């Protein structure tokens, strides 16, 4: 094995060699730089391979042949090897990226680059304190040098500010080192660490304080990091990558090495500074408009997070390395990739990244880096955050966990807002259009290669962390692989991919349906078979439809893995996968960008609540099986219940967290709306089922939690239906109606008795069938008429009969009118209510019931009945592929109406396991509970016979009836003016709004908007701290040092 020292030697040697070359031999000089960097990377790669495969102990390198404290020693352990590999790789890739600049500036710039990488490597390897100081200063000088690479004139100011700050830091560090040496007699870090008593009191304590605070100051802590952000904004993006990925990692490792000399007291200080930096920098990133400054804030925040993790090393035990490296490496890869990407884009505005839409691969890289940063599956950050949450909750440090999750949520907010701009917004002032055409990552191969490398690294590390986590690598899960396969197949035509998708879904169902118990079988059927029926409608869109199938399959993979999950980790991973997939699906809609953002924010907020809930329930246990939730100790169980319930409520859009649903479902594409509303909402209900199955009813401060759920369900039903009544947009009407239906289902689950759950199951099945049907038919009508506003349509019954039939059957089913399956749901509801001793919420539920009639009649009247407009006189029936699934659903509804036992009987028996008494008896065609009886077949037959006879009689009597047209109506002796003025559709329920309008004041929307505005304004206010004046930055640093000192004294 080549000794690690050669990393430093090679860099120095190459730097001097460059000096010997003549000025114009730049190509050779550049080649030499790349060779040196390549050699350094190769050395650290061999060491990483050696440590990974053989159980090699860390290797000490004694420079002067004598052990410390008489000489400087370097150590090459697993940590050092991995970090040097990271630093060298980033250095090599950046050098490649800087080809033009370096060749233009000549060999001196190359030498400075080499010195910078060597300084970082040295910082990682050295165990000597003064040597650490030397490498820090070398890094500072080379940084100032490399800043000058930037074409931005403002970089000069940034460089000078950096130098001012580094001078103050070096003053502190030097004094700290000399006094630490004076007290302990050694300069070796390990030596000092063995004598904590010496450094605990008097001069020693101050020395340790100065050393550590200087190192932490180098880590860009919150108040004192103005200079870092100015560097990020103005430096060359390649250098930005080095600065955030490489130097950030190296300095954090240095802090990790030196922290023990401050003893245990320093851990909370490090955590405090880290978490403050993480929260504040994410908060300040909210109002940013410049992409590089935003990335600067994000990387400062991430380094702060890693510092907080370093501060928790006593708690994290052996998982510490896995977590810290997981976060560090994902930040490094993502930031490097994003900075390199920003190099290929002209303007610095966030919307300027919309040019990426012409380069699908670059767009894919962009979204991968964002997901890596936020820590979404299947990337390393996800596993790291899971372990971190598990251990922190185990130690009861919930406040810290809450802060971390809040910060991550804010970060996810501005990152996905940025992604939404890139996907949807038009790049303003695109000058002469982006120079970089072509489908690849970028024109210059030297810019494309680093980005590609970062992309491959992101996915590779995701795979590696999956293996290291010991929890079953997500990338090996069959459903996820199936979804990712569509990434590769995206060049195929849409119908081929659609057939593949449908085949995959149904195939997976046929393979695995025996494994599920009846309850999960229903969910599996809805997710897989239901999904493939909706996918039939996707045959309608021609062309290749880039990006649709991977997102759709990602959602379905998440849904399938959700019901197959046995332990908390699998459940949570599936939950985040389906959230991610559905986010990309919703984002495809034309005006869906703001709504998709609010969707992802609510969903991620909910997901983090679930993460906190599982972590709290696990109490530090490595594996938490789902039914383990039942064994949670008493004081914690209610809190776990509340957290999990909050998480699931964001998905079932219960009142209060429902504001994302109308926009997301209305603005999605025609075949995405049914997927998202018919299928995705059931994931929330499945979550509730798992929660209630395992934890049953809990009491928190004497309040029965399921009783609270009852009220929330009833209120959601009322508010959802009431809001749907006053909508003018057909799809928004259906979306609000979904909120109402989900309120019903949640109410059923919260009743906690046999029939209550059966009612919820019935609602889940019914809601999927008729909501998908209605969304498809409204989508078909919107495609034909070109609008979704109901008052613009009318009289389409003659032109679109099949869509009319589908909507007619749909509204009869939703309203619960007898012959169809909706009535079954209502019947079971009544019996369930009689079983339970619930009283007051029933009043709200009964009021919500008839309100459904209002918006259902409004939908069918304004769109299909009434007066036909001029421009719609020639429209054709909805496309075949959109009508086919509707007709399938009509058939299913009729079958379920006549033979509900087909579906419900097995579930009914299965529910006996949880609630033995109160089940239904299925004798022949009659279904009876212990209160009443219901005979679906005879109802259908009786109503059918009466209907048929009367219809026949009317046909016979009116056989010579004269068919007339739309203006042959009695208009009190006059003739109607125009179809638009005779079609009653606008403000359909004006009197109802006068009576009950006050119930629909948008309180929830105002509340959430208030919060987001608060955060945004706070960010905008606090960021004024960075006035841009170098001197003020120095003041900030000194104030920070004094503040930390005082806090430490106080603690």
């Amino acid at each position: 094995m080549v000794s690690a020292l050669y990393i430093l030697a090679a860099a120095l040697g190459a730097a001097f060699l460059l000096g010997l070359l003549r000025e114009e031999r730049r190509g050779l000089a550049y080649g030499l730089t790349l060779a040196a960097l390549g050699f350094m990377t190769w050395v650290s790669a061999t060491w990483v391979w050696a440590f990974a495969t053989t159980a090699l102990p860390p290797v000490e390198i004694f420079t002067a042949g004598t052990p410390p404290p008489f000489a400087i020693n370097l150590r090459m352990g697993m940590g050092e090897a991995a970090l040097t590999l990271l630093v060298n790789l980033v250095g090599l890739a950046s050098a490649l990226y800087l080809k033009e600049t370096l060749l233009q500036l000549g060999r001196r710039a190359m030498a400075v680059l080499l010195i910078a990488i060597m300084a970082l490597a040295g910082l990682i390897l050295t165990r000597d304190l003064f040597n650490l100081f030397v490498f820090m200063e070398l890094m500072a000088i080379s940084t100032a040098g490399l800043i000058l690479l930037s074409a931005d004139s403002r970089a000069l100011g940034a460089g000078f500010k950096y130098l001012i700050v580094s001078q103050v830091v070096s003053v502190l560090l030097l004094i700290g080192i000399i006094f630490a040496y004076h007290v302990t007699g050694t300069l070796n870090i390990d030596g000092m660490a063995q004598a904590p008593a010496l450094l605990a009191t008097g001069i020693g304590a101050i020395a340790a304080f100065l050393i550590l605070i200087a190192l932490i100051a180098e880590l860009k802590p919150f108040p004192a990091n103005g200079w870092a952000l100015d560097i990020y904004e103005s430096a060359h993006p390649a250098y930005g990558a080095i600065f955030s990925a490489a130097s950030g990692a190296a300095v954090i490792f240095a802090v990790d090495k030196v922290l023990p000399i401050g003893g245990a007291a320093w851990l909370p200080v490090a955590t405090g500074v880290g978490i403050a930096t993480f929260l504040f920098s994410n908060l300040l990133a909210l109002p940013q408009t410049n992409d590089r400054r935003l990335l600067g804030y994000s990387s400062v925040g991430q380094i702060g997070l890693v510092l907080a993790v370093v501060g928790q090393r006593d708690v994290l035990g052996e998982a510490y390395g896995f977590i810290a490296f997981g976060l560090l490496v994902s930040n490094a890869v993502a930031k490097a990739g994003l900075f390199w990407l920003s190099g290929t884009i002209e303007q610095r505005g966030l919307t300027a990244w919309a040019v990426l839409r012409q380069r699908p691969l670059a767009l894919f890289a962009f979204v991968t880096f964002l997901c890596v940063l936020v820590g979404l599956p299947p990337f390393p950050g996800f596993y790291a955050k899971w372990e971190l949450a598990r251990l922190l909750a185990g130690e009861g440090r919930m406040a810290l966990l809450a802060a971390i999750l809040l910060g991550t949520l804010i970060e996810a907010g501005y990152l996905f807002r940025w992604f939404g701009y890139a996907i949807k917004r038009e790049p303003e002032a695109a000058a002469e259009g982006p120079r970089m055409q072509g489908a690849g990552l970028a024109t210059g191969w030297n810019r494309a290669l680093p980005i590609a490398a970062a992309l491959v690294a992101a996915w590779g590390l995701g795979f590696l962390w999956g293996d290291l986590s010991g929890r079953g690598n997500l990338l090996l899960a069959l459903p996820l692989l199936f979804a990712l396969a569509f990434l590769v197949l995206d060049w195929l035509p849409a119908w081929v991919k659609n057939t593949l998708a449908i085949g995959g879904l149904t195939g997976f169902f046929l393979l695995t349906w025996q494994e599920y118990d009846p309850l999960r079988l229903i969910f599996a059927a809805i997710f897989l078979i239901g999904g493939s029926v909706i996918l039939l409608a996707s045959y309608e869109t021609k062309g290749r439809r880039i990006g649709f199938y991977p997102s759709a399959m990602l959602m379905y993979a998440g849904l399938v893995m959700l019901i197959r999950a046995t332990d908390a980790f699998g459940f949570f991973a599936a939950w985040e996968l389906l959230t991610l997939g559905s986010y990309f699906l919703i984002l495809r809609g034309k005006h869906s960008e703001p709504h998709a953002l609010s969707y992802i924010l609510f969903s991620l907020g909910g997901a983090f609540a679930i993460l906190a809930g599982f972590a709290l329930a696990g109490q530090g246990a490595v594996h938490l099986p789902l039914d383990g939730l039942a064994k949670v100790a008493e004081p914690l169980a209610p809190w776990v219940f509340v957290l999990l319930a909050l998480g699931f409520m964001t998905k079932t859009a219960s009142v209060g967290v429902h504001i994302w649903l109308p926009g997301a479902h209305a603005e999605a594409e025609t075949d995405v709306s049914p997927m998202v509303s018919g299928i995705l909402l059931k994931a929330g209900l499945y979550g509730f089922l798992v929660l209630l199955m395992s934890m049953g009813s809990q009491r928190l401060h004497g309040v029965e939690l399921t009783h609270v759920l009852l009220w929330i369900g009833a209120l959601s039903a009322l508010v959802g239906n009431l809001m749907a009544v006053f909508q003018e947009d057909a799809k928004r009407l259906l979306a609000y109606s979904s909120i109402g239906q989900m309120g019903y289902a949640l109410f059923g689950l919260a009743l906690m008795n046999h029939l209550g759950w059966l009612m919820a199951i019935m609602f889940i099945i019914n809601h999927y069938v008729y909501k998908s049907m209605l969304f498809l038919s409204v989508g078909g009508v919107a495609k034909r008429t070109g609008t979704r506003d109901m008052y613009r349509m009318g009289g389409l019954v003659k032109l679109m009969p099949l869509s009319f039939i589908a909507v007619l059957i749909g509204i009869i089913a939703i309203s619960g009118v007898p012959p169809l399956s909706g009535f079954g749901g209502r019947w079971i509801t009544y019996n369930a209510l009689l079983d339970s001793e619930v009283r007051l919420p029933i009043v709200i539920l009964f009021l919500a019931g008839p309100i459904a009639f209002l918006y259902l009649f409004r939908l069918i009247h304004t769109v299909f009945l009434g007066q036909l407009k001029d421009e719609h006189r020639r429209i054709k029936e909805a496309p075949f592929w959109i009508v086919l699934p509707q007709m399938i659903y009509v058939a299913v509804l009729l079958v379920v109406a006549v033979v509900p036992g087909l579906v419900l009987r097995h579930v009914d028996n299965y529910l006996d396991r949880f609630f033995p008494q109160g089940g239904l008896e299925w004798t022949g065609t009659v279904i009876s509970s212990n209160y009443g009886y219901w005979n679906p077949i005879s109802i259908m037959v009786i109503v059918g016979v009466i209907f048929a006879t009367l219809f026949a009689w009317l046909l016979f009597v009116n056989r010579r009836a004269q068919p007339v047209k739309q203006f042959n109506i009695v208009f009190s002796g006059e003739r109607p003016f125009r179809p638009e003025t005779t079609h009653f559709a606008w403000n359909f329920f004006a009197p109802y709004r006068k009576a009950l309008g006050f119930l629909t004041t948008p309180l929830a929307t105002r509340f959430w908007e208030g919060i987001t505005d608060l955060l945004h304004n706070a960010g905008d206010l606090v960021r004024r701290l960075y006035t841009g004046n170098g001197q003020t930055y120095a003041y900030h640093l000194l104030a920070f040092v004094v503040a930390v000192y005082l806090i430490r004294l106080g603690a």
Partner: protein
Amino acid sequence: MKVELESRIVEGPEVVGVEPALDLQGKALPAVQPGAYSRTVTLMPRAELERRMVKGPDGVEFEVEPLRDYYCEAGPTVMPAAYLKIVEDLFNWARSRSIWILGFGTGCGAIEMRPLMTPRFDAYRFGIQWRPTPRQANLFVISGYLSVKTLKRAIRCYEQMQNPKYVVGLGSCTINGGMYWDSYNTIKRLDDYLPVDVYIAGCMPRPEALLQGFEDLKKLIRAGKAEGANQYAERFDWYKANQKQIIHDWDMPDYNW
């Protein structure tokens, strides 16, 4: 029938081969001479009735002709009585016992019809009731003078009533123009424009006379001779010609279903 939009001398259409109307006693009434009234009339263009090109949401351009597309263009047909005489007698009995008057008061007689529903005269005893829509009405009472403008609305309501339907004219104004015999804008003989079953003379007949008139109408119905609707269908062209002769801004289909 297309409405020319430019102004022109209004000439009545020549009526060929239609035998003259008969009055109650069967005497032929004098035919209306064409050209009796001729004056220049400038027609206001009906924007909403103009033929126009419309572009559908899918970009297909097509033509919309309101009078053809919005209105049914079929003419009235003669509706035969029930096949069996016994059934027709039952229906006639029921028709006579349940006469639903259309709430359409024209002229000064309408005020006479209100007392019918009061305790003093109580038309409910005879099965007479008011219906707000022509669809559900059987009897159309023209109570008094009928200006040309109201005639246009009366024709629409009459044609929207279902066969069999009856018309009762109140007062002398419907018989021969009454005291408005030389007015420029009232119609002189209701019979030229709508098939009338019963005239109740008097200027204006009191409610007792109305009740008596209704009794006569009932006798006619029971006798099966109140076939005004079929008469209107048979001699539709003659009626329509007379109506168009007097109504100049004819902007509606020939038969308003």
